[in-house]
């Protein structure tokens, strides 16, 4: 028998972990002399109280869905992809090249091309760590960390030396042409009579992200490849027995993961900034880890966790804007979520298992 029911594993444990993280976050807010109730109020109104707030919340959530899915897919193959940040940066590079160097007649075609480029660049950046893990056993966590730094240096070089328009002072590409402007929620919802804030950056990438959730779900639970990825993730020896090549699965899973992380660039680079700037990823690659952990690597869980983090991000930005609480509060919350749902999982799990065991003994 399982030690406890599935619902406890999937819902109860993350929930308790989340509550613990929330309690500690409250303590942190109290410790810096702020009022947690007010802070939460401000966050809720700022992030959910207007279509403007929702627009930013959903914009951030879109980023996190992509990176969360990226981490989740790799988790299914028991690979820890810490390289989402670098892969997303490279995705941005791909998007910028497509948008700047090709004259597009219409945004829709440009979007498809940008998606392809983003996925290609993201996957390419994951390919080397994947290959080294598969073929040479180099620990993928370390190599992907290294690749994040290398990506930052590469992007720095591209923006400072190669892609910066003549005469411009800041290391950023030129604005993308008007033709590749993606429809925002404002533009998309106006025809059906909803007046969504014009200023918020949420855009059609949100739809792509939702589609990506569905596609990843189907991939993992409904296809042969997903079956093989999961089998490999649960047991490498089992995979070898079944004729599932560990090398192939490692590489394929990481390519998919990198492509998903790269795909984020259609949202932040093409949809929001409409140019490529340094640090455009804003740590979304790392937040993907928290999102995947909280979402238990299930696309639906990732979706929910991404919305939660989108809320935290927008709420945090509002806090920074209207109070003296620095935006880093969000980083602390994020750290606590990762800590409790990831590293201290057993702290919640072990007592619960005992509890359920005792309950069952009683029932018998």
């Amino acid at each position, binding site marked *: *028998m*399982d*030690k406890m029911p599935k619902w406890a594993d999937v819902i109860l444990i993350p929930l308790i972990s989340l509550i613990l993280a929330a309690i500690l976050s409250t303590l942190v807010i109290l410790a810096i002399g702020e009022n947690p109730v007010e802070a939460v109020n401000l966050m809720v109104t700022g992030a959910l109280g207007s279509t403007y707030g929702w627009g930013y919340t959903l914009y951030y959530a879109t980023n996190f869905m992509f990176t969360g899915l990226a981490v989740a897919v790799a988790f299914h193959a028991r690979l820890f992809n810490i390289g989402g940040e670098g892969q997303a940066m490279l995705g941005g590079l791909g998007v910028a090249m497509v948008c700047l160097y090709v004259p597009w007649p219409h945004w829709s075609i440009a979007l498809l091309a940008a998606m392809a480029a983003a996925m290609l660049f993201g996957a390419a950046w994951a390919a080397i760590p994947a290959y080294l893990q598969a073929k040479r056993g180099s620990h993928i966590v370390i190599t992907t960390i290294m690749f994040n730094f290398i990506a930052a240096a590469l992007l720095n070089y591209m923006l400072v030396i190669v892609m910066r328009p003549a005469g411009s002072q800041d290391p950023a590409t030129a604005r993308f042409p008007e033709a590749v402007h993606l429809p925002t929620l404002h533009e998309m919802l106006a025809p059906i009579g909803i007046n969504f804030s014009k200023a918020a950056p949420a855009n059609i990438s949100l739809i792509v992200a939702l589609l990506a959730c569905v596609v990843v779900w*189907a991939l993992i639970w*409904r*296809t*042969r490849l997903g*079956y*093989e990825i*999961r*089998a490999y993730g*649960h*047991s490498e*020896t*089992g995979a*070898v*027995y*079944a*004729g*599932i*090549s560990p090398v192939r699965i490692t590489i394929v899973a990481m390519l998919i993961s990198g492509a998903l992380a790269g795909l984020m660039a259609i949202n932040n680079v093409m949809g929001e900034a409409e140019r490529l700037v340094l640090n455009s990823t804003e740590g979304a690659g790392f937040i993907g880890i928290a999102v995947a952990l909280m979402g238990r690597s299930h696309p639906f869980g990732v979706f929910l966790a991404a919305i939660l983090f989108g809320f935290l991000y927008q709420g945090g930005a509002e806090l920074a804007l209207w109070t003296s609480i620095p935006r880093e509060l969000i980083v602390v919350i994020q750290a606590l979520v990762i800590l409790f749902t990831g590293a201290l999982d057993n702290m919640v799990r072990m007592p619960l*298992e005992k509890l359920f*065991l005792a309950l*069952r003994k009683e029932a018998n």
Partner: protein
Amino acid sequence: MTVPAIELKGISKAFGPVQANKDISISVAPGTIHGIIGENGAGKSTLMSILYGFYKADKGEIWINGKKTDIPDSQAAIAAGIGMVFQHFKLVENFTVLENIVLGAEDGGLLAPSLAKARKELKDLEQEYELFVDPDKRIDEIGVGMQQRVEILKALYRKAEILILDEPTGVLTPAEADQLFRILDRLRAEGKTIILITHKLREIMEATDTVSVMRRGQMTATVKTAETNPEELAELMVGRKVLLRVDKVPAKPGKPILEIENLRVTDSSGVERVKGIDLTVRAGEIVGIAGVAGNGQSELLEVLGGMRPGSGTIRMNGVPLALSGPGSDGQARRAQGIAHVPEDRQREGLIMDFHAWENVAFGYHRDPAYQRGIFMDNAALRADTERKIEKFDVRPPNGWLSAKNFSGGNQQKIVVAREIERNPDLLLVGQPTRGVDIGAIEFIHKQIVALRDQGKAILLVSVELEEIFSLSDRIAVMFDGHIMGERLPHETDEKELGLLMAGVAGEAA
């Protein structure tokens, strides 16, 4: 009446829902060798680990030399004069023998004096018990027999008066085993108390003074060795009369299905494990491979099953198989009509976290019958599972349970069902009944024989000589990567096979 060296009273231990030890009591007289036998999973190792402070008992008392002793950790056990040689050695592989011996028993904070002292004492111990080792060799440079001596020396260095050996002969050749028993005799003569765990009745009969039998976590009997016999012990072990032979009609071997020529296998650390073997398996026969674990049988099965590369020639139905690179993996082997019941069902044959119905497709998940468009046809899978559960009497009959929630025997039934139902030309079977109860053993054996009777070829690897004898139509013995000889079961006996397994060439035997 002397005071018992060890007395356990009412020991119970559960791992989550598994009750590994239930209210066990046992008493061991000083200066004797006390055997403990029992099936796989009976709880022998758990009991000894409790005695050694490695696990903590949920209930019960431990008395050493007539004193109630608390053993919360191994430190306490060592202090109480207990030493243990684990089934899986606990040695640091990249340390030297000497470093392993002093580890945890150093004198003072500096290493050099400890090592010097240990080196000297080791000399004395070697002399005293004829336990020769090279103190400066690294563990990963010496063989298992030697490693075991290091483990024994570790215990003696810590002044153990009570020595526990958990299945010490599983990895040894009969000759090495004989040497071990001589050492144990000497230790007993010195007044030490020894607990010996094994499933091998022969060893119990030869080496022990008293024997206790465990079944399903309980102690079923303790008897004087001199007053019992193997048949009685076997019955005590499994709880009913043991069927030693499987009923089967004589084999009618047909054309060769599998032909192996000069097969060589090198493992990932560069050691050659199979050193050029030739073997043929024909349609309608079961060829059994006997041998002590670790003599290349596993590697042989793994190459045939596409789990690792090899070199040489293997023909299946006359067609050469790729032995490395593309076309040499498990998928290719299945396509060529080879099915494989792997040695380790939990690590290989099943994904423990998958539902039973997902496991029923494991390895065959690319079969078109399981596909619908680009997706897997889960409905078809579940229907297929229903049938197999029914036919192989898997209990509980619920395809939605995860594999880990079935007992060992039922897990094995799922694997066997999956492989046999493929109707393969060749079935590879590794340790088919390891950790499986007698009822399931009979059932699985019958299925294997039935497949043979349909004219299929079967290659069986088992470390249980009894199983080899009862199933095989022809027996090949492997030692050190070579096939030492082939025998027909009715023309040989355990003694002859034992010599072959120890590497004593056929002519001499």
